């Protein structure tokens, strides 16, 4: 028996022709996704990678003191360096003085070892009067610190092009002079508190949202359409309203002379002259964020509950379960996917929240995002901001990955 190959109309074997068509379709789909994909790669993915790079990039200092670092390479760190090192430092500092750019290295070196700031400033002031040759004694005459070997060790430590020092700083650790990782000084350990607070706020906001969202989602899912549509507006209107509008309404409500405090005084819970501080602390952050993020919990819960047939509960009851047992053993387990989706979404959004904590949180209610913004806009320590941002990003992407595994991003629903 001979097997004849089935040919398509253009004379090719059917298999080949089919593959060709499939490939064409695949290419068509990829071409459609292509523009947005490329756009995001260039304007979004690449910049985020660049930010990651910036957080470990420490070449600024080696670029500004090129001769110093070349000469220090040969130095072993046992005795005070010889004349050539001092000459190299002189050359670099004189150039920085001429271009007026020495300000940048001061902060960086002072970070390596306290005292560098005054040392560099003092030396730069006098550097023009230095005579040629025998720089070593002239340096030491300007400031005794140039005789201290610790400063040279610190300088050499600043040499590597790549450094994860900023990441250590982000969790209150640092390198000591011997390159060991140690804790920051007691009074400078602020970031661990911030991370913990951010996690705590995100966790509790998620819990509060869940507690508040579950009953109303159930109501929305079980009420007849005409009533539930009306009530749905209460969920959707805040969802569509500007974040700043919602935050400002909380500022109105929570201020000391505001309606909530009026109510507390009227109820006799506090004296008129001892009104509790509801804003500019962590209470304000909790309350406002819970209300703002609540719709993100209600919508996934609602869409899951909508699919649960009410006859299941009736069946449970008819088999002898009390309503409570029927709820716990039948209804609740069926809503778990919705709880997972809503909780992860709220947690992801809460962990990176910036605007609301900045406006109603005050100092004790500010989160990690606020610190990132502070370093971006005020302290201008961009590489530290980038390091904190990268740490936050890794956390969020991990949760995103879990979300994707559990829920699937195609199942995100909006409204």
């Amino acid at each position, binding site marked *: 028996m001979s097997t004849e190959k089935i040919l398509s109309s253009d004379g090719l074997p059917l298999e080949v022709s089919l593959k060709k068509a499939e490939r064409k379709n695949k290419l068509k789909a990829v071409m459609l*996704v292509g523009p947005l994909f490329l756009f995001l790669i260039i304007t979004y993915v690449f910049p985020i990678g660049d930010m990651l790079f910036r957080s470990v990039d420490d070449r600024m200092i080696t670029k500004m003191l090129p001769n110093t670092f070349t000469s220090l390479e040969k130095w072993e760190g046992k005795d005070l360096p010889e004349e050539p090192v001092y000459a190299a430092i002189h050359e670099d500092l004189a150039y920085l003085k001429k271009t007026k750019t020495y300000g940048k290295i001061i902060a960086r070196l002072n970070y390596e070892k306290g005292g560098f700031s005054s040392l560099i400033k003092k030396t730069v002031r006098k550097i023009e009067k230095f005579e040629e040759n025998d720089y070593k004694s002239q340096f030491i005459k300007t400031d005794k610190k140039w005789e201290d070997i610790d400063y040279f060790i610190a300088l050499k430590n600043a040499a590597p092009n790549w450094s994860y020092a900023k990441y250590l700083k982000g969790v209150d650790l640092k390198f000591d002079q011997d390159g060991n990782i140690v804790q920051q000084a007691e009074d400078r350990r602020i970031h661990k508190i911030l991370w913990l607070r951010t996690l705590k706020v995100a966790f509790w906001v998620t819990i509060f949202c869940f507690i508040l969202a579950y009953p109303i989602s159930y109501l929305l899912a079980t009420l007849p359409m005409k009533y539930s549509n009306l009530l749905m507006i*209460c969920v959707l*209107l805040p969802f569509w309203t500007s974040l700043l509008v919602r935050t400002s309404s909380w500022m109105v409500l929570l201020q000391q*002379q505001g309606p909530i405090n009026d109510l507390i005084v009227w109820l006799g819970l506090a004296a008129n002259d001892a009104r509790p501080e509801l804003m500019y602390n962590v209470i304000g952050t909790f309350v406002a964020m819970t209300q703002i993020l609540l719709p993100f919990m209600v919508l996934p819960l609602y869409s899951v509950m909508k699919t649960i047939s009410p006859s299941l509960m009736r069946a449970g009851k008819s088999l002898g379960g009390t309503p409570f047992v029927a709820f716990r053993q039948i209804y609740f387990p069926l809503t778990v996917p919705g709880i997972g989706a809503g909780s992860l979404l709220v947690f992801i959004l809460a962990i990176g929240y910036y605007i609301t904590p900045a406006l109603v949180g005050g100092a004790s209610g500010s989160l990690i995002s606020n610190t990132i913004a502070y370093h971006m806009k005020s302290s201008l320590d961009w590489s530290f901001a980038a390091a904190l941002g990268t740490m936050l990003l890794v956390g969020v992407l991990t949760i995103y990955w879990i979300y994707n595994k559990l829920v699937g991003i195609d199942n995100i*629903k909006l409204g």
Partner: protein
Amino acid sequence: MALPTYTAWNYRIWHYTYLTICGLVFFFLIAPLFIILPLSFNAEQYIHFSSGMLALDPDAFSLRWYEDMIYGTKNPWGLAAKNSIIIAFFATIGSTILGTVAALGLSSRHMPYKAAFMALLISPMIVPLIISGTAIFFFMAKVGLAATHTGIILAHIILGTPFVVITVTATLTGFDHSVTRAAASLGSNPVNTFMKITLPLILPGVISGALFAFVTSFDEVVVVLFLAGLENTTIPIQMWVGLREQLSPTIMAVATCLIIMSTLILVSAELLRRRSERLRGINR
């Protein structure tokens, strides 16, 4: 939810407690928005309910803060509104086109690595805004687009596309692809098929995605804070600046306008969603 007459008294009590709890949660959700409306008509300069307002005395109410918002001499709201509208308009067009085209590709069953692409395209919605803002700022500064409208529009296109991708892919699930095949077999070219067959059917999804993109851009403040110069100030930026200084009644007036706008958008989005479900034959 009316209870049958045979319900035992303890269930009755539980039922009404439950309804009360739900009522309180709905109140918690919606009441903060309504506190702003009366305060924007306050005749006084302070943000609280004056005794005249509580007594509904007409003299205690005025439109002076709305006048201040529009005609006030040093008020930046005019420029901010203009910028916001321009930026949101172009950002919406950009996100809608890019997002819709990408969603068409993603919904094709021939698309390879669908989940991975989807995860990437949605990521701007998931990544905290402060990180997106930082990264986009570094990038725009590098290419010389910081403090320009173009830079902000590009940033908002990035942030808006995930919403369009999500809504349009949702509309395309359950889309009957045999209608496009029918069009093709009748000799229509792909562009024509898209314009005449696919687009009208998915239009409600596209428009509601566009609404999301518009609101995202119009409401966005974190990224603009990094990117904007004095010339590019937007309404959210001005509100942010104002709120950091002090609560002024003018901000309440602006907020009221924004609430009215969001109500209109909500109504149109809801109508579109229902139309889309009808078009796709989904009955709930």
